[in-house]
């Protein structure tokens, strides 16, 4: 069925909460980026592209969430997998620095909350995958600098992911 019809299966409350959670995580992520910039002068992810390649930071795809090719259940699944991936990446950043730790922890908590919200909705719709996703190989940050640079790259990738998620959720909420 057309994605819009499927959107009707999603409670409006769920979509409103998701949109709010995306905005909250965006705010958390912006806070992390601002602190990395203020404290460590790491302000531009484009200065860290080369390092990013060497660190091998995976990115989450939202191909089934773009409005042209939106497949609702596939989109929810990709959203959940992406959030799950970012939980793993944030855990890999553990020990980044005492000043940043509270911000990273809060970001991790909010992402985990959002992932749980999506997973429970998939369960309610009966489309939850038989097996919960397992974490792939995570980058290894071998120095304090790499953790901070990794933080900039992860936060930047997360913002792009969230923008895609927001567009899809907004599209569904308006459906």
């Amino acid at each position: 069925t057309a994605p819009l019809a499927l959107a009707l299966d999603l409670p409006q409350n769920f979509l409103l909460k998701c949109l709010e959670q995306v905005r909250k995580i965006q705010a958390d992520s912006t806070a992390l980026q601002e602190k990395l910039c203020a404290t460590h002068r790491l302000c531009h992810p484009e200065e860290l592209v080369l390092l990013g390649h060497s660190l091998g930071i995976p990115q989450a795809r939202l191909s089934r969430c773009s409005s042209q090719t939106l497949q609702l259940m596939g989109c929810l699944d990709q959203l959940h997998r992406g959030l799950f991936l970012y939980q793993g990446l944030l855990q890999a950043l553990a020990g980044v620095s005492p000043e940043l730790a509270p911000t990273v922890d809060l970001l991790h908590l909010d992402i985990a909350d959002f992932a749980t919200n999506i997973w429970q909705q998939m369960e309610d719709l009966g489309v939850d995958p038989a097996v919960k996703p397992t974490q792939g190989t995570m980058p290894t940050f071998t120095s304090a600098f790499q953790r901070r640079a990794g933080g900039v790259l992860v936060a930047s990738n997360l913002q792009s992911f969230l923008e895609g998620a927001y567009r899809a959720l907004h599209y569904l909420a308006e459906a």
Partner: protein
Amino acid sequence: LEDCAHIRVSTPIVRLGDPVTASCTINQTCSSLGPESQIVWKLEAELQPGGKQQHLPNGAQESTITLPHLNHPRALLSCCLLWRGSLQILDQAELQAGYPPVVPSNLSCLMNLTTNSLFCQWEPGPDSYLSTSFTLKSFKSRENCQTPMGSIPDCMAEDRQSHCSIPRKHLQLYQYMGIWVQAKNALGTSKSSQLCLSPIDVVKLEPPTLGALYPSPRKDPPQPECLQLHWETWKPSLYMEQKCELRHQPQLGEAHWTVVSPLPSTVPGYELCGLLPSTVYILQIRCIRWPLPGYWSNWSPILKLVTG
């Protein structure tokens, strides 16, 4: 050095008005104990008749007493000996009396975005006269909070406090949790009724910052019956969709509030008209998470402005 005397109490903590039985054993080694030494009981400062005294095979003497009704929440029971005309205190025991904890009532919770914690408070009920601990218990769940899906550490209220805050790291803001209060003292345990909530749905915001907007010289002069205002969302709630309401009243004798609603949560410039010219007005604004659930913020501090 073996104790001179020792009191044993059946139950040191009883319900107010219940009986208490105690026995005091005085060892032979306790100075030159004459065969007819009389053991005397005192409760606080009052002598207590009715002690039954007996000799024990090992030469010690033991007195047993039952106080029919202990009506003091706290009382010191003393075991004394009449010795050379004076009453010698040989041992003391503290007795306590009170009631089992009453069921805590009116449990309510607010999600505080400043402290990022779920603040819950309750009515402890009448004093039980005993040291009573209050514990906020909760579990993660799905919508109806019937089936626990994950544990949450207990939140122990501080002594004599009837509130507790669950920190963000133990919360899932957008998931449901069952939550109740347990009261416990030496005489029993009681449990409040259970709430079922998701923390973010009981968020209470702080009001926006309300201010006057001073017209720029290049623009037309402000109309006498209007006020130029602006307000800005409370930053920690920027990500939330909200609605607000503004109330105003002239500072005149019998004035009443006029409420303007609904209003958005951030407005760079707002013109409030239909007012009395050359009059002092007091204004306040408050907001609430909307359309998703939440609680109204308090009213903002009063803003006092004068119309043209």
